[in-house]
């Protein structure tokens, strides 16, 4: 009982014991560095409006809460990192960090976290940065409501907005990322949740997974990136309710799946991408109730696909619905709606009576001889596709949707 009381006592007084240090141009403490040096673990540092020309601010083993009031500007003046942190339970919110230096050998970031558990980075604005948040070996974090903007020069001279390396259980929520190299990059990260972010105009990928298992991304928008999302060498990824839009260019695509297993894609919308889904080596991947609209290719399968299923998706006005190379294996297409389907439904059960063949002869030829694409929209190709549709000879016989829907699937 005594112990319990003392614990209660401590808990009651702890918050009030934590001090608050104010930083402003007319305060006693004028620089963030000074404040951090003075502060003890558990303190709050409030930085008031103003411009602070500081770089390489380091926090070591102090659990600080750094709070900006009316977005004070931390200007790193193109030298190195703004904040470098190695401490537990750090919170940084409401700062505007600008002008992070570029380097070909060092990864300068607005905020660098290394071995810092339980962190929170909230409502910050980063502009003209090389890397935005560089998070290494730090678990259990929250990155929320930040706005990150780069200059988007070229891939070699830009960094990633949110870069996770060897970090698990991190929630990335409601961030807006623009004109960086990768919007969000995760390497060796587990159980991360990426929710409702907007990644646009990034030079490489909007979101990029490498060797990261059991993650999910839900409700994000990826627009006009070099490529929308790349998921590589990862297992158990959940992809839901995302919008992949206008990832358009000769080498661009909405979603790249490379050596992926046990993933689910549900309720995503792919619109105006050159290639909506570019799949190379997928095992046990399920596509359920997605919309593919006005894409060049809706799905391009490069081979090495096993137990990959496409069920109840809408394929609307794509130039090619499916491009397929390699064997069919045990992949299935079933119960999708295809706008190019021209069959009939005599028994009125809303399922077409004739199977649909999503691979056109021309897309089959283009897969083998890429140069043949120059004949796109030639009369000869139309005639050829039509005759192949009437009596298929060249396209894979088993690649059919046996139950094509007559009406668009509402989900």
């Amino acid at each position, binding site marked *: 009982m005594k112990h319990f009381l003392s614990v209660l006592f401590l808990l009651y007084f702890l918050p009030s014991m934590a001090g608050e240090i104010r930083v402003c141009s007319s305060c006693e403490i004028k620089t963030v560095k000074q404040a951090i040096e003075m502060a003890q673990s558990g303190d709050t540092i409030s930085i008031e409006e103003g411009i602070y020309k500081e770089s390489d601010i380091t926090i070591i083993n102090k659990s600080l809460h750094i709070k900006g009031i009316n977005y004070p500007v931390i200007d790193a003046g193109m030298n190195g990192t703004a904040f470098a942190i190695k401490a537990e339970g750090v919170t940084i919110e409401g700062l505007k960090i600008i002008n992070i230096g570029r380097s070909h050998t060092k990864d300068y970031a607005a905020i660098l976290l290394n071995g810092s558990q339980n962190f929170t980075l909230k409502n910050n604005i980063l502009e003209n940065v090389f890397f935005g948040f560089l998070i290494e070996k730090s678990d259990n974090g929250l990155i929320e409501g930040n706005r990150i903007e780069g200059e988007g020069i070229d891939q070699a001279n830009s960094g990633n907005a949110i870069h996770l390396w060897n970090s698990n259980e991190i929630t990335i929520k409601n961030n807006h990322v623009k004109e960086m190299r990768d919007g969000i990059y995760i390497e060796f990260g587990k159980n991360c949740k990426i929710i409702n972010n907007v990644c646009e105009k990034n030079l490489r990928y909007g979101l990029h997974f490498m060797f990261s298992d059991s993650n999910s991304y839900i409700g994000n928008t990826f627009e006009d990136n070099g490529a929308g999302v790349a998921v590589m060498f990862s297992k158990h990824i959940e992809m839901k309710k995302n919008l992949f839009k206008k990832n*358009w260019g000769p080498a*661009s695509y909405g979603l790249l799946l490379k050596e992926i297993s046990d993933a689910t894609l549900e309720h995503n919308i792919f619109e105006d991408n050159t290639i909506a889904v570019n799949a190379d080596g997928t095992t046990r991947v399920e596509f359920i109730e997605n919309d593919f609209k006005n894409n*060049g290719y809706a799905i391009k399968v490069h081979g090495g696909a096993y137990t990959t299923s496409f069920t109840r998706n809408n394929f609307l006005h794509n130039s090619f619905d499916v491009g397929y190379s390699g064997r069919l294996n045990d992949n299935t297409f079933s119960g999708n709606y295809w706008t190019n389907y021209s069959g009939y439904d005599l028994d009125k059960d809303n399922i077409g009576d004739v199977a649909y063949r999503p691979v056109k002869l021309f897309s089959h030829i283009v897969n083998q001889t890429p140069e043949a*694409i*120059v004949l*796109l929209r030639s*009369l*000869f190709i139309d005639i050829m596709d039509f005759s192949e549709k009437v009596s298929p000879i060249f396209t894979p016989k088993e690649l059919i949707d046996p139950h094509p829907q007559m009406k668009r699937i509402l989900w």
Partner: protein
Amino acid sequence: MFKILKYSFYDLSRSRWSYVYFLFYLLLGFTLLFLNNDLSGAVITMMNVIIVLVPLIGTIFGVMYYYDSKEFTELLLAQPIKRKSIFLGQYFGVAISLAASLILGLGIPFVAYGLFQSGAIWDFVILLVTGVFLTFIFTALAFNIALSNENKIKGFGFAILLWLFLAVIYDGIFLMALVHFQEYPLDKFALIATMGNPIDLSRILILLKLDISALLGYTGAVFKNFFGTSMGTILSLGMLSLWVILPVWRISAKAKKKDF
């Protein structure tokens, strides 16, 4: 020559077929834009129509006009007029009236739907330019065939065959060559083979102007590098002009020596 051109042109502008042709494009333009209010989408659909129909109509109209006005031509030949001016006058009369039907027929609906305010204007201009070139090319080829064949049926047959060859068979052979030699680098070959056929060249010129060109991938990039430069533009326009000049030159050469 201009007098003959004028007569041919007036004659054709009073002909029912010119109106049918004009109304066809007018109706097509309005229907397409009515169904799908998006100008650049309509340009793509229009391209499909133009690269197939314009050559076909140019060919048939050219052959038909030549055979129909044969008696009038013979009457003219009795007059002290240069043969060259008679035939070239007739040719330009037909080609210009067809081109005018095309430009007006497509232009009116597109302008009515706000072409000048939209970004699709250059796509549309390239569409019309290639359409006009195709009209001139295929009318000239038709006159050549008609001049070389006294027999109407034979002339028509050849004309249709020529259209069929350039619109369909050529692409078939092209595709077969690509598939057969797929082990080799084919970009140059594809480029040259495209330049060799006015229909293919027009198709590529229009495609590269549209969003859809990103679909062409690596090969498309090679094409874009070529056609995107001023050198490529000049070369492709030169190629189209050559397709007009050579047949026109042969019309005058053939007309000079022909017995009537």
